[in-house]
């Protein structure tokens, strides 16, 4: 349902952030995008979200070309970016103010329960912790019921315990709304814990180095053998992308770990 074809982005300053990406994502799939910093992960999400335009290539959601922010696509930034003058409830409803008030209230109430912040509706963002703010940001994107939700390192600023907790809630939210999720992370554990498929990106120019399918069901046990194996494969693919001069990157990984294709 989300198809990315020959996607390239060269910024005005000449930096080639993405070069010739092809990705196809199924309805309801959870895809994690991992890679070192500067390999174009945020650029990729901004292009899908329609915040920036690609230099070349195309993005289609259900066959429709994305050239500007699209109603079917939501985005959660790395920082919560809540509006400080709105209460938690109004922040969550920010993107659905065209709906009837009753429906808005219903969706906000449901989202508050799912993110574990019942009773916080009237609070202001300044009264929230980082993890709570990020949950509100995720709820704000989800209540608009996007078909595709993009998340740019949503948990990277949080401590490991909070992060673990949010992983559980993320899956619960996904089960409630069933959006297609594309999540950028720099944490291999996080990618393997949540995703159906992990896309490993390499820098300069930003491109896909490897894709790893994770077939096990959820919830996933971190101590499980298959979890450890998947995690090692993601890490070794990441390792290879860090080494300069790996021209035949894809072949090596394919030979070494038996890639999914």
């Amino acid at each position, binding site marked *: 349902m989300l198809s990315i074809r020959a996607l390239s982005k060269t910024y005005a300053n000449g930096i080639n952030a993405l070069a010739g990406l092809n990705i196809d994502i199924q309805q309801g799939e959870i895809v994690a995008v991992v890679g070192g910093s500067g390999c174009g992960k945020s650029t990729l999400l901004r292009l899908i979200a329609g915040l920036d335009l690609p230099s070349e290539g195309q993005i289609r959601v259900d066959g429709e070309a994305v050239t500007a*922010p699209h109603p079917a696509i939501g985005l959660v*930034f790395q920082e919560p970016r809540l509006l400080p003058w709105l209460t938690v409830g109004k922040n969550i409803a*920010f993107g659905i103010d065209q709906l009837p008030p009753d429906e808005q209230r219903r969706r906000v109430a449901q989202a508050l329960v799912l993110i574990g912040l019942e009773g916080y509706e009237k609070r202001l963002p300044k009264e929230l912790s980082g993890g709570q703010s990020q949950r509100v940001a995720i709820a704000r994107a989800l209540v608009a019921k996007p078909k595709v939700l993009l998340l740019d390192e949503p948990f990277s600023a949080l401590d490991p315990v909070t992060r673990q907790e949010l992983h559980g809630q993320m899956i619960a939210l996904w089960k409630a709304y069933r959006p297609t999720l594309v999540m950028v992370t720099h944490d291999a554990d996080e990618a393997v814990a949540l995703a159906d498929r992990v896309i490993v990106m390499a820098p300069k120019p930003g491109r896909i180095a490897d894709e790893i399918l994770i077939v096990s069901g959820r919830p996933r046990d971190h101590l499980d053998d298959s979890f450890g194996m998947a995690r090692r494969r993601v890490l070794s693919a990441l390792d290879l992308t860090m080494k300069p001069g790996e021209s035949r990157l894809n072949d090596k990984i394919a030979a070494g770990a038996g890639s999914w294709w």
Partner: protein
Amino acid sequence: MSVTSAKSEARIASAEAAGSAFRVPAGLIGLILPLGLAVAYEFAVRAGWVEGRLLPPPSRLIATLAALANGGELWLHIGTTMARVGAGFFFGSLAGIVLGALSGVSLLSRQLLDPTLQALRAIPSIAWVPLFILWFGIFETSKVVLIAVGVFFPVYLGVTSAILSVDRKIIEVGRVFRLGRLAQIRRILLPAVLPSTVTALRSGLGLGWMFVVAAEFMGASEGLGYLLIDGQQLGRPDQIMAALVIFASLGKFTDAVLVAISRPFLRWQDTAAIGGQPQEL
């Protein structure tokens, strides 16, 4: 900070106050110095240690104020000056907000307007007085225009820079949710620039009070500035000081009104100042 912890802190503070004989309510601490000096000076004059002719003692000041108030004269002067400041502040801040918003929102208007306004700003505003008198006469118009000019610049600059410094990140939130240009302005830009706009209006108001004095110096038959000049010509320092006290009170009062009006809209701010008072850091 949560409400409960603020409350418990208040409780701790009042418990401390009860425990210590030297503790004075926060608002009163600031009164110690001026009241102490006034009482000491009054005492010194009465004891005959100082003459007190050029600097009248508090009792004479109060008597002068009372006499002015009883004669009804005081209210006329206050009313006139307030009307001038009010009109000047209204027109000056209206122009400042409109042009500041234009400059902030549109690059073209900024390139068009800003250099000229910056050049005009380089003229010390009092220097306009002779020209304004030639253009608008010596009556109300020239006074109001001068005050408006004084109010305009801080408001214009404050609004422009407030708009230019709105965080690109929250503007992107509006873009992701596909807000139109008007909705973007109403739902993101306006609330985001409100705090700095209030600050700009407050400095504009302060300048308005400064300029009303200049305006009333240039020939007025009523107003607090007239009271100052009149006191000088009659050799009555008590009248001058009475006018100064009223200026100070009115300036503070109108600023407090502005703050009070804007406070309900600014509760969301997460700054070090709580209730308008900066906290000890």
